[in-house]
């Protein structure tokens, strides 16, 4: 198969870029894979793509480049295709509209895969006939504004398939009713770490993520006050940087935990840090997937996580390879941590179970699921062109109907839908 990914900016840093690179690399073992980056602001990607996957860009934002596009007047004018309600819309323009449209009109591929809602909209509306259109949702439907949800509902029926990273989000998208669109959950992949798994002997609990409100590290620190009171020989490391750092620092000092809780700053790579711990902790109020949970499990750590929407409950088998606790409850979190701290055999057993269970997120296995999905979509398109044409017509009609209805309701509230 020829597979073409469309990504916001392959030259930056982030979960979507990493997981797209992992997937593209794994698929490239047997398929012809390219990544098309809408924007390019540096010469080489920060994350390693490896050989075998072609990478090209549509809009060049390198100021020292002879092909610099930033001074094109169209770059200063607001986008019309990329939805205004999408989080990245500020970086899109008439120029990106034009370049993406041209790319999708000419794309030499069996499938195009969009990696964020705004790009999925482009793919749904502008991809040439005969090419399978796949949209990926790396966040969740309910994390989008109402305006964006309306925009997506109007256009997504023109996709062939939409993938989410959790079953919970797939269910939400199915409720949105996208006729003729196959909605399937395929989790993110995490490669096997390049070092031996943790041996469960260190008296360290490890957490990692942006120091942002949604991660609720305040709850974790309060929980750890109870842990340290019962087991002062255990300590907590929190890796990551972010806007909550000063507040968390103050909380650590207020609770007198400066000998027990450490804000480690950003770490790269992370697997060497997981390997120093014996238990991983996740205190988030929301995890669209839960990449850190899988990363920790792949390093052999049992994870104590909040049972928040959407990912943790689909990754952790409570009591088998980790523990799930209610959101925002320091006592429950402390209790689950202490149950593993106080039982060395149970901790080791769960760590081993986590290592085994997390192998299902290996890039080769995730790529195989995509391969199956892509193959079926392609077969459908090829074997029944008539039905495909009918589907497209029906999809276009339905999406037209939605668009009209949604535009009407949006107009009443003064929201631009597309």
């Amino acid at each position, binding site marked *: 198969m020829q597979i073409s990914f469309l990504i916001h900016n392959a030259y930056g840093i982030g979960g979507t870029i990493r997981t797209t690179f992992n997937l593209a*690399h794994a698929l490239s073992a047997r398929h012809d894979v390219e990544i098309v980056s809408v924007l390019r602001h540096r010469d080489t990607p920060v994350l390693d793509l*490896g*050989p075998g996957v072609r990478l090209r860009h549509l809009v060049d934002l390198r100021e020292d480049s002879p092909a610099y596009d930033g001074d094109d007047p169209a770059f200063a004018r607001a986008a019309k295709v990329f939805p205004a309600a999408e989080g990245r819309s500020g970086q899109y323009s008439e120029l990106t509209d034009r370049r993406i449209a041209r790319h999708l009109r000419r794309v030499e591929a069996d499938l195009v895969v969009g990696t964020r809602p705004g790009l999925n909209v482009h793919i749904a509306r502008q991809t040439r006939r005969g090419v399978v259109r796949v949209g990926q949702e790396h966040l969740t439907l309910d994390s989008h504004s109402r305006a964006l949800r309306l925009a997506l509902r109007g256009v997504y029926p023109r996709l062939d398939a939409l993938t989410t990273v959790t079953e919970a989000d797939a269910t939400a998208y199915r409720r949105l009713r996208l006729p003729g669109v196959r909605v399937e959950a395929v989790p993110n992949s995490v490669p096997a770490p*390049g070092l031996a798994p943790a041996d469960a002997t260190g008296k360290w609990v490890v957490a990692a993520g942006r120091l942002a409100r949604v991660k609720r590290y305040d709850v974790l620190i309060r929980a750890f006050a109870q842990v340290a009171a019962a087991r002062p020989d255990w300590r907590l490391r929190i890796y990551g940087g972010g806007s909550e750092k000063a507040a968390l620092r103050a909380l650590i000092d207020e609770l007198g935990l400066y000998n027990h809780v450490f804000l480690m700053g950003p*770490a*790269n790579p992370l697997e*060497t840090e997981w390997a120093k711990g014996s238990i991983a902790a996740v205190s988030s109020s929301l995890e669209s997937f839960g990449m850190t949970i899988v*990363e920790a499990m792949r390093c052999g750590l049992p994870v104590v996580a909040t049972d928040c929407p959407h990912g943790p409950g689909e990754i952790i088998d409570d009591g088998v390879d980790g523990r799930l606790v209610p959101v925002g409850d320091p006592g429950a979190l402390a209790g689950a941590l202490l149950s593993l701290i106080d039982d060395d055999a149970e901790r080791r057993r769960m760590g081993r179970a986590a290592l085994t269970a997390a192998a299902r997120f290996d*890039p080769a296995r995730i790529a195989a699921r995509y391969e199956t999905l892509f193959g079926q979509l392609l077969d459908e398109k090829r074997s029944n062109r008539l039905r495909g044409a009918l589907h497209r017509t029906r999809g276009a009609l339905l999406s037209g109907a939605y668009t009209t209805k949604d535009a009407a309701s949006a107009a009443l509230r003064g929201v631009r839908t597309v």
Partner: protein
Amino acid sequence: MNTSTRPPAAGSGPPPPTTGTDGAPPGLTADTIADSAGGLTFDLAAPPGVRTTWSAALVLRLRGADAEEVRLPLGPNGAGGLRAVLPSTVALAEGRWQVYADLGDGHAPHRLLPGLNDLRSLVDRRPLAGIGRLGVRIPYTTKLGNLALRSWLRGPHAEAGDILVEPAGMTVEGRLYGALPGEGAHVEARARRTAGGGATVTVPLTADGARFSFTLPYAGPVGHWRGGGEPWDLWLVPAEGAPPVRIGRLLDDVADKKQIFAYPAMPVPAAGAEVRVGPYYTLDNDLALRVAGPETTD
């Protein structure tokens, strides 16, 4: 997950980059594994096409010192890569060491890029208390993204552990390596700046074998405060007349302690003002106390 800029790992992920920033041959990456005795093993993922000779070496160069260089033999590691070992018995001067690979091919040595630093055996490291001279080497990534080592070489060494911060002073627990606290053991806080008049504040040391603790009331250093911010360095004198030992925190995997091991600063009344006083680790991971006036911002 946006914690890090982590590239996909080796193994089933994409392979390391095959192009370097400073010309051919491409960037060489080294994984390091630390052992609890202080030794380090370097495993280089040599890209295909890179040939080595018998004279290949891992080269360590002390930053800021022109001639200080340590060469370690670099040979096959049996897994298709190259390996060099820095045993704990090879003394490295204190400082920051840049890491190069000299492939023995007539080209200048190549600066190495960091791969995976497996430092788990350094976490909670507890060497034998009787060790004569303690070597500590912690691999880290420089601001420019290169592999480097921080090195300490101390004998005796006073390792700081938990610190209890209270309104009127702090109590430090620790462990002494290479000496046992004896008669007249004490701790000296020395004003770093001459503006402090070279003042020294002395407090007694409580010892139990190699373990020690001391309490430093803030009133002493604060009594010498004349405005601005004044750092005080902490020295442990193992016995009356013995050479003083700098108190530091070296025995783990954290190359730079200052931002991570942070402690509250307490308000203390001083001459005509209120100062803030609290312990911190210096850029060299030594323990110090800062007396900061109301106008100082750090």
